[in-house]
């Protein structure tokens, strides 16, 4: 039985289509999840048949969908319409799911609030004063407000898991390479993965089973031996059972609400029969610096293609090609993006690579090994996603530097290439708190297993803005 039962056929039946449109018209103006919303356009790209026939879903505006805009939240891609569709989206369209729109995000995925978007502000469906998190804030907010049952996001250093935690939904960052990146606009290629935001574990799992698999257009994509197809995946994972859960211990610098919820979560897991034991991640303090060194280095190259020459924002006048490029980039990129390009260029300078970029790569290898060691002792790891709950927009929230430091819990999974799932763990002070589970590579099923059982004890809650009759 599909977890999408109530959503199936919603957009393919004209009557339900209209009621769906009315719901979104009522909710979206207060949330601002979408940069572009156009289910009519989306319907044209989907198969009329399939497991997810007529199920609406949202796509972070960093994934290509033919005919839809592809802005990455940046002015430099203003007006750009994608001529092709990302592999992940194609797979869902073939299953009948319908892209209803492109969701707001931090510019090129660089941020934790979605407030660096050039286009609009996205509000948290639990409290519009607060951010939905980022960078996949639009996708998380669209799910949490009941406009879609699931949405695609991208996760380079926590960009799916953190907004999911802020919005009280599930956020999956799969093993690196298990989901094709073809059509995902690159921020940091060796860290980027396509992730899933969804309202339930079951939905997350179902979508993951659909989108995973090797893609010839992405030569870094992988297929775990003997697991091709949806069935292969379920078969492979059905006989592994999680017994030991290690929780990251030590002085983690969590807000009091998050700290309380962390304790409670450990208790709940214990009560479910798991062996819950503290573990130490010896390299925790390196995660954020290593992440920002590697990610910005790759970003400095990945973002070099935006010049206003072939597509996107183009300055009105330039004397010569060089000036055209200079103007397009200085007017088209936001401050955070420029900061990261500069940083990346800096760490790649010849003569300094050993000191920065290559050193970061060596530490990254050490981080992977550290996880290998931990997974000898425990089956999965429980960790905070973010030290705070959803913060307020603007200066009352976290400044960009604090946000970067706060990324230390989530960046680990990207650096190590392992899967991680952020799950809702109840409310503190009226706002959701989420934690994440991490598993060894290809261990997604272990994450779902624990999250399913946890949901039985602590069911996910609907946000106040979510009045959707289908969720």
């Amino acid at each position, binding site marked *: 039985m599909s977890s999408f039962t109530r959503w199936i056929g919603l957009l393919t039946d004209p009557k339900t289509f209209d009621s769906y449109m009315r719901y979104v018209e009522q909710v979206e103006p207060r949330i601002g999840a979408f940069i572009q919303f156009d289910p009519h356009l989306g319907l044209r790209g989907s198969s009329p048949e399939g497991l997810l026939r007529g199920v609406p879903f949202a796509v972070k505006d960093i994934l290509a969908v033919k005919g839809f805009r592809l802005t*990455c939240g940046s002015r430099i891609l203003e007006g750009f319409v994608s001529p092709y569709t990302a592999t992940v989206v194609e797979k869902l369209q073939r299953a009948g799911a319908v892209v209803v729109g492109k969701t707001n995000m931090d510019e090129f995925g660089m941020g934790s609030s979605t407030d660096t978007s050039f286009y609009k502000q996205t509000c948290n469906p639990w409290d519009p004063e607060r951010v939905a998190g980022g960078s996949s804030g639009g996708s998380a907010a669209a799910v949490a407000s009941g406009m879609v049952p699931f949405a695609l996001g991208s996760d380079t250093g926590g960009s799916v898991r953190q907004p999911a935690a802020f919005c009280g939904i599930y956020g999956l960052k799969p093993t690196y390479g298990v989901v094709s990146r*073809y059509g*995902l606009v*690159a921020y940091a290629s060796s860290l980027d993965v396509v992730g899933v935001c969804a309202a339930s574990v079951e939905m997350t799992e179902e979508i993951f089973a659909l989108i995973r698999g090797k893609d010839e257009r992405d030569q*870094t994509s992988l297929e775990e031996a003997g697991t091709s197809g949806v069935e292969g995946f379920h078969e492979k994972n059905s006989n592994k059972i999680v017994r030991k859960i290690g929780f990251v211990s030590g002085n983690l610098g969590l807000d009091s609400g998050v700290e309380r919820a962390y304790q409670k979560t450990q208790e709940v897991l214990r009560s479910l029969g798991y062996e819950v034991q503290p573990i130490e991640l010896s390299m925790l303090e390196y995660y954020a610096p290593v992440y920002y060194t590697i990610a910005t280095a790759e970003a400095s190259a990945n973002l070099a293609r935006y010049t206003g020459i*072939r597509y996107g924002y183009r300055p009105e006048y330039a004397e010569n090609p060089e000036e055209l490029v200079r103007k397009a980039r200085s007017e088209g990129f936001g401050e955070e993006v420029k900061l990261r390009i500069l940083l990346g260029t800096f760490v*790649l300078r010849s003569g300094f690579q050993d000191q920065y970029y290559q050193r970061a790569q060596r530490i990254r290898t050490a981080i992977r090994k550290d996880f290998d060691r931990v997974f000898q002792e425990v089956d999965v790891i429980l960790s905070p996603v973010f030290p705070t709950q959803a913060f307020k927009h603007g200066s009352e929230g976290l400044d960009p530097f604090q946000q970067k430091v706060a990324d230390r819990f989530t960046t680990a999974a990207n650096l190590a290439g392992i899967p991680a799932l952020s799950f809702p763990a109840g409310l503190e002070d009226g706002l959701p708190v989420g934690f994440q589970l991490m598993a060894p590579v290809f261990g997604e099923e272990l994450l779902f297993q624990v999250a399913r059982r946890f949901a039985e004890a602590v069911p996910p809650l609907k946000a106040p803005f979510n009045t959707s009759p289908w969720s």
Partner: protein
Amino acid sequence: MYQSFIGLEIHIQLLTQSKVFCSCPVRFGDEPNTNVCPICMGYPGVLPSLNREAVKYGYVVARALNCQLSPVTVFERKNYFYPDMPKNYQISQYTQPIGRNGYMDIEFRKKKKRVRIHEVHLEEDAGKSIHAGDLSLLDYNRAGTPLLEIVTEPDLEIGEEAEVLLQNFRRMVRYLGVCDGNMEEGSLRCDANVSVNLRGQGLGKKVEIKNLNSSRFVRLALNYEIARQEEILSRGGTILQETRLWNENRDITEGMRTKESAHDYRYFPEPDLPPFKADHAFLEEVEACLVELPDQRKNRFLTQYNLSETLAEFLTAEKSTADFFERAVELGADPVGAATWLSSDVQKLLNRQGLTLLESPLNPERFAELMVLLQEGKIHGKLGKQVLELVFQEGKSPKEILKDRNWEQITDPSVIGPIVEKILTKNPHVVETIRRGDLKPWGFLVGLIMKETSGRADPRVVHEILKERLQVSFIYLLTFGGAISGRRDPDGMVVPGGSAAIRKILEQNPSWKDVVRVEELPGEDILSEEITPADWATLILRTATLLQEGNAKGIVITHGTDTLSYTASLFYWLFGNAEIPIVFTAASLPPEEGSEAAQNILQALQQSEKGEKGVSVVFGGETYKPVNLRFLSLDPMRFYNWNAERIRNESPSPFPLFGGGLGVETLRERIEGIVRKIFIVKVFPGLQGDQLICLINAGVRFFILELFDTGTANLRESPFSLKKAFEIGKTQGVRFFCTSQQEGVVDFSGYVTAHALWKEGAIPMGALATESVYTKLIAAFLYAESEEEILQWMEENGASIG
């Protein structure tokens, strides 16, 4: 003394079906921006997919360049902004390229060299910018084309070597089928690095030269740049490390950007492409792509088909030509004949019609059919040429063409015999005249027979039958002046004497009387030292005619002693491949003064009756080779062959048989035109470069320099240096052919001055003596249609070890 170091960076576009990271076709000349897709246009979100075929071609080239192949090859991003580069980084290779530490062997002017290959790596090409007035237009069709970069070590010294390397490399990649090697269209591109420093002080400041879109420009630009840097250094200046552009309109290099503003490419591993593992199966595929390379094939042709260097070189320059040739040989064509036809008549037709062999209507089957018809004597050469032209015009097989026109030649003696009989019966007076020994009406008889058969009778068969019926086969004795046919006048001086004395000798030896026909050339009495181009023209043409008429079983030429080494060697080059013996002889004194002249003449007659075919010299009971003939002593007069042991016994002349076909006046004019441009200089202490420059200014274009030892001359900066003459000479297209003052092979590898000569473009002439080089140059002029061909002939071995 300065030393120059040249390294090349060669880029080739690989002839894969699709681009290196996407499935767009690799095709040139299409509408701009039609062979593009989101991937090669660098659209957001796309990823590269490595084209396995391109990697394979890369490994094939690296293997052919004797590189160590990487078991795992890795891609990197090379970051820099350029409007025609879609991603503003180029996917290239840096830490683990496809191949490393290879080499390529080259040879320039007999000097062999192993040029080390630093690395071979694969990358993607950029698009093209077109600037039109205020607009900059971009065409991305080329973006993403697989590009293989080959980097050599700085092992080259002069532009000529770089040119040779590039030409060999181009031929190699064409053989391998991985690149079409077209430099004008940019499918093969070359940048060069040059540095000049004082000898022994290692590399100097590196200057990079770009915009070299032909191998000729590579040579010119490098030599210009070396001279420029040497001049700066000799003035005490320093070289600026920079990139310079070759300006082909002005023939100079011009500064473009200095190293200070050079890019920091910030290489880092391409995260979108996993390392490529060259596993066993892949490497087997690579091996399967290797073919016999041009040099190997040329060497095989030399031995297997007994071809000359020039023909082997010609045939193997293009794989398609070599394949065509070998197929025709398989089908029965004689290798030497086929090679000669391909290089001459076929090539002329191709040039005229602007076709390549592959595009032409001539295929190996048709060509072999023509060759077999010729070999079997079913058609003669002249008809063969006509048939060949018709194959080109009508696209039919030679046999069809002959049949269509009823042109099949009559070669059967039993058919021609009765016709000859008929003609002879009708012309009893003519027969009588010829039987008396007057051959003048011979041609008249042949003409009648040809008319009777509508020109279809094989002239060779006609001549054979006539010779048999009329019983004529003569030794022709051509007197060409000198003491051997002279006499002493009342003052005691030796003066020219026509043929009287020689006729007298023959009268005293009646057994020779009936077989020998004496002709007096060049018509007036001369002594050896008085020979002029006109005399040579007369002798050459008479010899050519005799060879064609076929009534001679041998030719004896009596000649003066002084210039014998010139005429004999000239005849070797022109008639070395004659089917009958051509024997030169001479005497130190007039016949009336002793027995030497008579003895030599009789020896020559004997040799011409049963001796080996080709040219030889007899004197005083000895037989000499016609080249490198020199006096051993004057009293008694003795000759010897200089560098005797180095003259190949078996080697035929590299030139085909001289066919004449010109009037005496024309030939005289041509020879005069040639010799006017040639000058022989024996270097001596005190010879000044300026003296040679005077000669250059007077119109000399070909120097034969007789060097000290086996290859040295003064090139140190001073008035006595020849360097300046070489430099001025270069600008005027002057060539310096070098012989030596001592026996031995000219060798530029021994001394620093010899090496300098090599660098300056001196052309070593192997073991050839000066006189033989002089006549070879005349022969080369008579055969060649361009200066390049002259050089080819001159560097062709023939008679001497190179």
